[in-house]
């Protein structure tokens, strides 16, 4: 619980309406996009400018009160879950687009600016901001930096880390770090990369300079149906081996296809696996690549191939994929979305194992896959009203993530660790690496005031959880006691 005297001090540096403590005011902030994790915050502050953010940090640092930064709250890993006794620092009101430089193709924005709002503001100049997480209509750019967000176009256009130039960031003791530059690099260590995806653990960002790209001249999508998931998986590798880097390359399995079809009637064929391959760029390049993709898909055993003949049809092809999550949501009261990444060649093996586990757990799974970059989103269907169902889904999900690690992948491709995947971090990393992560944090935040308890597990917790991944007969933390 936060001391009332501290609340008064917060009110001293912020406008009265920017400090929320009444239950009905703070309850809306009890979770982020992963609503299975809830914790009503003690106090929520909504600063309206950088000076207020810094004042809050200095106050918290002086009183050793923890700070959880939050953007739009669309995160899917409980990264912005309130922490007991901490201030929830909501940056949504820092939402100005400060400058757009069309010739230099950059935008300077505050962290609360919505991802899509950047592209909308750049559109008159025929420019856009490339990373497009599915929540882009609502998610904030500050949150994107904190999570290193991706989207469906990562293979060609990269993640957030590839599309930002500069940050104004503040350490918890109120020191300004100007990270990156307006040039293409900066002196010293690459702190721009270190902060991107650091989940609010190292510093608080108040300004971001992003890169803008020219809008592609043309985009075209090809849809291919397969009677076998393995064939579809192989086709993905074949497209890439043919020298094509698609803007988007998405795959859905039978359950996801059926759900999407029932929901939006995209006209998808009845099949085991569906590939959507989008090519964008210069007109002639698109024509050449689409031709290649067609040939490769045919040679890879597609049972049906369709090219979108119009923009309307292209959008229709995408409609099913874009609606896949809500569509799957209609199949069961709840679903739990996983975010592992695997080497693509492992896809048939991983899908087979997920299928086996699905039977063992008695929970259905629909698979949606950013196939181009190996990012798998299995959606585990469950009913939260049934006692123990959430726990079962979480256990199943944890097993899927450990499987991803086992085949050489990772527990999170784009959603972040937050609190949700903190146990699986014990499977992904061994003690020396986890220790180093804590030391990296200490270099910025020695008092552990920023987002405590998230992203990197305490070592003793790994042992307590028993979330051990046995690899080659070796436990990753052999020196720790087990109970």
């Amino acid at each position, binding site marked *: 619980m936060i001391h009332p005297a501290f609340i008064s001090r917060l009110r001293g540096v912020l406008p009265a309406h920017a400090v929320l403590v009444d239950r009905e005011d703070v309850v809306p902030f009890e979770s982020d996009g992963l609503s299975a994790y809830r914790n009503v915050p003690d106090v929520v502050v909504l600063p309206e400018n950088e000076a207020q953010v810094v004042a809050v940090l200095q106050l918290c640092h002086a009183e050793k009160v923890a700070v959880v930064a939050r953007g739009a709250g669309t995160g899917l890993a409980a990264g912005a879950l309130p922490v007991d006794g901490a201030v929830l620092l909501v940056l949504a009101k820092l939402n100005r687009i400060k400058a757009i430089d069309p010739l*230099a193709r950059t935008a300077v924005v505050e962290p609360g600016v919505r991802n899509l709002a950047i592209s909308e503001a750049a559109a008159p100049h025929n420019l856009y901001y490339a990373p497009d997480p599915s929540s882009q209509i609502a998610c904030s750019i500050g949150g994107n930096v904190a999570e290193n967000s991706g989207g469906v176009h990562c293979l060609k256009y990269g993640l957030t880390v590839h599309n930002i130039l500069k940050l104004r960031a503040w350490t918890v003791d109120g020191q300004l770090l100007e990270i990156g530059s307006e040039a293409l690099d900066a002196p010293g260590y690459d702190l721009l*990369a270190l902060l991107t995806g650091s989940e609010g653990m190292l510093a608080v960002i108040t300004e971001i300079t992003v890169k803008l790209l*020219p809008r592609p001249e043309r985009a075209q999508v090809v849809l291919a149906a397969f009677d076998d998931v393995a064939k579809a998986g192989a086709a993905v590798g074949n497209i890439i081996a043919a020298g094509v880097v698609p803007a988007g390359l998405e795959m859905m399995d039978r359950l996801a296809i059926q759900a999407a079809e029932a929901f939006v009637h995209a006209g998808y064929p009845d099949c085991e696996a569906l590939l959507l391959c989008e090519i964008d*760029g210069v007109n*002639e*390049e698109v024509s050449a690549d689409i031709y290649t993709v067609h040939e490769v898909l045919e040679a890879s055993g597609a049972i049906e191939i369709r090219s979108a003949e119009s923009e309307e049809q292209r959008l229709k092809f995408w409609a099913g994929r874009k609606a896949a999550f809500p569509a799957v949501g209609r199949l069961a009261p709840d679903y739990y979305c996983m975010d592992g990444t695997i080497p693509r060649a492992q896809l048939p093996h991983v899908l087979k194992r997920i299928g086996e586990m699905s039977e063992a757990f008695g929970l259905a799974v629909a698979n949606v896959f950013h196939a181009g970059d190996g990012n798998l989103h299995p959606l585990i269907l469950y009913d939260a009203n049934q006692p123990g169902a959430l726990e079962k889904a979480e256990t199943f999900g944890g097993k899927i993530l450990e499987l991803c690690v086992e085949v050489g992948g990772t527990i999170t*491709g784009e959603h972040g660790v937050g609190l949700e995947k903190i146990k699986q971090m014990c499977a992904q990393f061994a003690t020396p690496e986890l220790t*180093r*992560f804590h030391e990296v944090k200490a*270099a910025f935040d020695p008092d552990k005031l920023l987002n405590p308890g998230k992203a990197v597990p305490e070592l003793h917790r790994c042992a307590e959880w028993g979330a051990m991944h046995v690899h080659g007969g070796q436990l990753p933390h052999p020196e720790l006691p087990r109970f």
Partner: protein
Amino acid sequence: MLDALIERIRAAYENDSPLIIQGGGSKGFYGNADEGEVLSTRGLTGIVDYQSKELVLTARAGTPLADIEALLAEHDQMLAFEPPHFSPSPQPFPSRGEGARDALRAPKPIDATLGGSIAAGLSGPRRPYAGAARDFVLGVRIIDGRGQPLRFGGQVIKNVAGYDVSRLMVGALGTLGLITEVSLKVLPRPAEELALQFELDEATAIVKMNEWAGQPLPLSATSWHAGVLSVRLSGAAPAVRAAHTKLGGEVLKDGTAFWQRLRDHATPFFDRQPLWRLAVKSTTPPLGLGEAQWIEWGGALRWLASEHPAGMLRAAARAAGGHATLFRGEVSSPHSFPRAGAGAGANVMPDAINDGVFTPLPPAMRAVHRALKLRFDPRGILNRGRLYPDF
């Protein structure tokens, strides 16, 4: 070999004796003078894994870039950040400068290695259009300054588990750890490349480079020097032809060689010293700091052969949103340019910090750098002083 390196670093840690990490030796000129015994990675070679369909290659640090590029070329793929070799074999690398450091860095360079390229973090002409070295690093294995082997990142393109320590190693010049293995994202080679040239003055060329980068054109490199703007187009043959029609210009016959020479600084311009590297906002108008200039990266990189005081060049770069590096040449004498963060009192800043190759950091940034260095290399045995003279 790996065990031997670990042992060597552990011993150096115990004895507090600094080490100079050396790969091919092609970038021995780059950075501040360091001290210690040479620790070579040249025995640590081999491509560990290459899956062309995954667009991922993993190799040990001492593997020559040329070997990696040759294997990739067999599969029509490439390192898209176009890392400079600076010493293209089989030509012997001309010895540059004098001094104890060069003598220490024997044997003579053969070819740039993967580990050295990632540690230096330098990228070639394709950088503004395809990405930098750091953009393609997916994972690293390192040995830290205590001799502890560590592994960060992995072999998949999307990975946000844990802090991005892999990319932190890129450009750290070996001061945070000896890189022993790197996993990289690779890309298909474009089907066709074409170099075009235009006679244009500097100011017009800078505007053109930026305007074209804002249009859907298959640009992959730009350069301006001595009144000539050179542009490389890459992509499917019809796309390259269409862009050529749109842009006009004279076709440069030996385009491939031109860009390779630029990448490797294998033209007489780059022999001049001191050679400064000014990274600036791409739209920065002509700097007016002398004729001896080569512009790359769509205007974002300005090479200057200049005797101007370091302070003046650093101030110009700062005003242009960037920073200045003394790329080749002797470091200037102490106090030759203003102390960064002067007046920030409490932060002790030895004079030596101002005397370096790289732009000095403001106090808060410097504190974070030193704190990170302390965690990765507590006794400062790895490439001591190479990045900043005080650590």
